[in-house]
């Protein structure tokens, strides 16, 4: 029991030191303020955690929907292949984090805008894929706010099945 009491005392001391020392750090945690999760913050869907602001421009479902209907933007699904197969934005290409971006890059001559989405309102996966595309030379890359759940909730166009285009490129082994 003594060791447990000591462990609790160490934690209590640490907590006090942490809360006291917080004010002396370069970017202190805002004690006394409410910090909601990024996904729950009003009007902050898909902002990067840490309040650092989005590095990739955002696009709302309302703005993205007509681009999908008119096929004037390339949609990129950053979720897992299984999630893509069970349902995705019509015409979207599947491109998970870390996969070769060639199927998207080859189409940049046709589509000026690329819209990346994932499964969660915090958009962490979509951000990573979008950043990778920007680094590979894509000019106009956006991340869909609200992600796939918001798209579904808006009744926007969706489809199911494997990524035929990705398969085609995989079979060809490249351009």
């Amino acid at each position: 029991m003594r060791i447990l009491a000591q462990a609790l005392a160490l934690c209590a001391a640490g907590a006090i030191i942490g809360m006291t020392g917080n004010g002396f750090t370069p970017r202190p945690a805002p004690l006394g303020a409410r910090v909601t999760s990024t996904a729950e913050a009003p009007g902050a869907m898909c902002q990067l955690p840490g309040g650092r602001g989005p590095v990739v421009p955002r696009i709302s479902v309302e703005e993205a929907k007509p681009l999908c209907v008119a096929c004037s933007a390339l949609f990129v699904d950053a979720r897992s292949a299984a999630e893509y197969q069970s349902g995705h934005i019509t015409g979207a290409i599947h491109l998970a984090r870390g996969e070769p971006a060639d199927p998207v890059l080859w189409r940049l001559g046709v589509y000026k805008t690329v819209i990346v989405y994932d499964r969660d309102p915090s958009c962490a996966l979509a951000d990573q894929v979008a950043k990778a595309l920007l680094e590979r030379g894509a000019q106009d890359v956006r991340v869909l706010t609200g992600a796939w759940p918001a798209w579904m909730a808006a009744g926007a166009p969706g489809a199911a099945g494997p990524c035929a285009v990705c398969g085609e490129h995989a079979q060809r082994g490249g351009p």
Partner: protein
Amino acid sequence: MRPALLLTSRFALSAIFLYAAATKVPDMAGFAQDFANFRLVPPGLVPYGASAVVGIEVVLGLALATGFGARSAALAAGGLLVIFLGALAQALLRGIDLRCGCFGNDELASWWTVARDALLLVPAALVVWVKPDGQLGRSTTKY
């Protein structure tokens, strides 16, 4: 051999906890946001919880490094790791994409981070339960 193993465990845990704290200190507000994204604590308590976690990491790291209350610190470190494990696992099971906030960078939470936390329980358990002579139980020897 056993004292060397225990010392290594202690110093390894200490280094990891101090490093984790050091990477969070420059951006405590950012860590508070990472902390909030786990959606485990009411928003009003998030900044307190986040700064407390960093302070606890510092105190446990120092205790493990100096040997002052090392077994108690290892027990507390184990408890903290179990909490981290639970927080990460529940987020992954709920399908929440987030940064783990472990070392102040953009590392995403994954089952790898869960496994890494679980692995750290081994040195914590060694320091708590193994005596330098290899017996299990309460240690009476300072090491």
